[in-house]
C-alpha cells in the first residue's frame, strides 16, 4: 500500500517512455531490415555493438526496458483483475509476483547489462 503511489508514478512515466520511444525503436530493430525499409540493418551485430559502446545508448535501453516493464506489468495486473482475478490475496499475488518480480528484476537486469563492460 505504501509503495502504490510509486508504482503508479512508474506506470505513468513508463507510459510516456513507451509511447514516445518504443514505436521508432521497434521499427528500426525488428522491421526496417526484414522489409527493406531502411538502407542499413540497425540491429545487425556489427552495427549494434558499435552503438552499444555509447553511454547514451546504454542509458536509452535501460530506461526503455525499465519503463516498459513497469508500465506493462501494472496494466496486466488490472486487466487480470478485470477478467475476474480479484480479491485481496489475488491482488497481493499479482503485486508481488508480477510487479515486483518482472518489473523490478527485469529493470535491474537491464541496468546490469547497461553498465557491464562500461563501468565494470
Amino acid at each position: 500500500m505504501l509503495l502504490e503511489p510509486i508504482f503508479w508514478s512508474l506506470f505513468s512515466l513508463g507510459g510516456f517512455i513507451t509511447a514516445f520511444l518504443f514505436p521508432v525503436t521497434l521499427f528500426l530493430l525488428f522491421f526496417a531490415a526484414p522489409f527493406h525499409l531502411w538502407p542499413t540493418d540497425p540491429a545487425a551485430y556489427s552495427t549494434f555493438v558499435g552503438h552499444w559502446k555509447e553511454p547514451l545508448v546504454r542509458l536509452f535501453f535501460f530506461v526503455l526496458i525499465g519503463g516498459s516493464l513497469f508500465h506493462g506489468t501494472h496494466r496486466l495486473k488490472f486487466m487480470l483483475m478485470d477478467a475476474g482475478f480479484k480479491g485481496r490475496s489475488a491482488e497481493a499475488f499479482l503485486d508481488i509476483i508480477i510487479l515486483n518480480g518482472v518489473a523490478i528484476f527485469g529493470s535491474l537486469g537491464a541496468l546490469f547489462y547497461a553498465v557491464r563492460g562500461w563501468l565494470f
Partner: protein
Amino acid sequence: MTGREYAWKRRPGWWLRNRRYLMFQLREAGGVVCALYGLVLLNMLIQLRAGESAYTAFLNLLRTPPVLYLNIVLFALVVWHALTWFMLIGKAQPIQFTRQPLPWKVVFGINVLLWLGVSGAVVYLIFGGI
C-alpha cells in the same frame, strides 16, 4: 480504518459489447505488449553480451516469418497504445495556457509532432542516423 470496497459491477466479456470498449481493451493490451517487448529487448542485451553467434541466432529467430508476422500484430498494438496515450493527455490533463483549456485534438496534434521529433532524435542519437 479501512475503506469500503467498491462493488464489482462489470460482467466478464464486457469489452466485447461495443467498439469503444474493444478499442479501449486493445489499448490496454498494447500496454502489456510493451512489457513483452521490454523482455525481448532485455534478452537481446543478454544475447549481445553472449557474443555474435548467440545474438545473430536470436535476431534470425525474430525474423522467421511466423515470428515476424506476429510482431507486426504486436507492433500495431504498441502504435495504437502510443496514439491513444497522446489522445488521453489532452483529455485527462487539459493543458491550460489560455483562458479556455486547449481542445484535446490540438494537444494530440502537438504530441504527434513531438513524437515525430523525438523519433528523429532517436534515429540520429541512438542508431547513428540513416
